[in-house]
């Protein structure tokens, strides 16, 4: 996803409708701000090259 603020706002509006999440005037700006930060983090994590054999980690079992 782009980190363009407008595109993130469009995504948030559409996803909220699709998933039936509340997004009234009190929440919309805060949710978009949170999603903008998450998008930037996701983009940075994606820069780390992971080989195909890297699977989801399990918890330590004593």
């Amino acid at each position: 996803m782009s980190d363009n603020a407008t595109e993130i706002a469009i995504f948030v509006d559409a996803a909220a409708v699709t998933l039936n999440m509340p997004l009234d005037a009190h929440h919309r700006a805060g949710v978009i701000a949170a999603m903008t930060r998450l998008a930037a983090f996701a983009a940075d994590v994606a820069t780390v090259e992971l080989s195909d054999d890297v699977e989801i980690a399990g918890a330590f079992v004593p």
Partner: protein
Amino acid sequence: MTAAEIAGAVRAGSTSAREIIVSTLARIGAAEPHLNAFTAVFAQRALARAELIDAAIASGTDLGPLAGVPFAAKNLFDVAGFVTRAGAKVTATDAPAAADADAVAALEQHGAVLVGATNMDEFAYGFTTENAHDGATHNPHDYTRIAGGSSGGSTAAVAAGLVPIALGTDTNGSIRVPSAFCGIFGIRPTLGLLSTRGAFPFVHSLDVVGPFARTARDLSTAFGVLRSSHAAQRIDVAAMRCARLGGYFDEGLLPEARHGVDVVCDAVGADSVVELAHAKQAREAAFLITAAEAGELHAERLRRFSADYDPATCDRLIAGALVPAAWYLRALRFRTYFQAEMAAAFATYDVLIAAATPYAAPAIGQRTIVIDGQEVEVRANVGVFTQPITLAGVPVVCVPIVERGVLPVGVQLIGRPGSESALLALAEALELRAIVGAAPLAAVA
């Protein structure tokens, strides 16, 4: 009194559990107007429990290392007969818990007495314990400062000497951050080591439970009880190979936090510096996993009761509920990658050392702080040094650096999975040398 002193006195018959609990309840009553550490006090339950302990001791039963020791638990732990609030309003009408959480039960099975539930950030989603419903918990070292979070009520209660031990949980730093701000010991155990049953979940992939104490010995005792393992281990602290975490962990911290790390590194001879190349991405991945899992957990409640959520958590939870699966799964796969990066560091070193927070406790209500000339958000930056370690799932003991006239800071002693005993031994050794340690109660506000 420490937990060890109380248990010794109760077991020897020089005081009774009832006397201990009565005086504890009186101290809580006197301190609460200043601290706001507790959201509920279980006086009746505690006194009844104390009488059982006194009767057991009178009949010759040895209750163990926590006989008569009062403790508090973050209000996300189930307590039979009471509603588990998890710092929220929307949970207030939930059914009361049918049984005690495993961690509460474990401590009580060894003689401890639960006296109350403590304040926290709503659903553990925060680092400040400025709760919209229950108010802010005040730092015992300076009432105008936050106690840290999300287990801030527990750490304030311990730091103020109201109880010698308490229970908390740590997802991204909720044991380590408030331990640091309140100047006490805390342990985040290895992910998956201790039962989380009966603890209201926040992020299933990252949550752990752990204890707090004013002394390393008490912390070790409480952890041993929770772990159900009291086997004495001979640990040669002097032989431990320690290194300082550099790079990411050496940036963006104020002088007091750097000083704390310097003190511990000097004491253990940690001359080497280790850099974790992807620490920044580790924090970001922890952030993504947190948002996605917490959002999913709360999606249904949010649809019906979003107006009843703390504004500080509501928007982040809604955003988390909308996170694309690809981001979440990439973060989970990155965790495996980062665990390998940390394992490589532990091939050479036994303990890695880093600041717990970038600064000492900010003021209650403070929104921003200036670091390296840049104004940054307090809430968003408190966990910069704890979140990357969370992702690796390794154990951490947070040790306090308390100096006269200065707010406390905390230092993370980070070990490989399952190395809690070694980390606790190192904490005890440092405390014996007066390198680390909680402030004397007379010096606490």
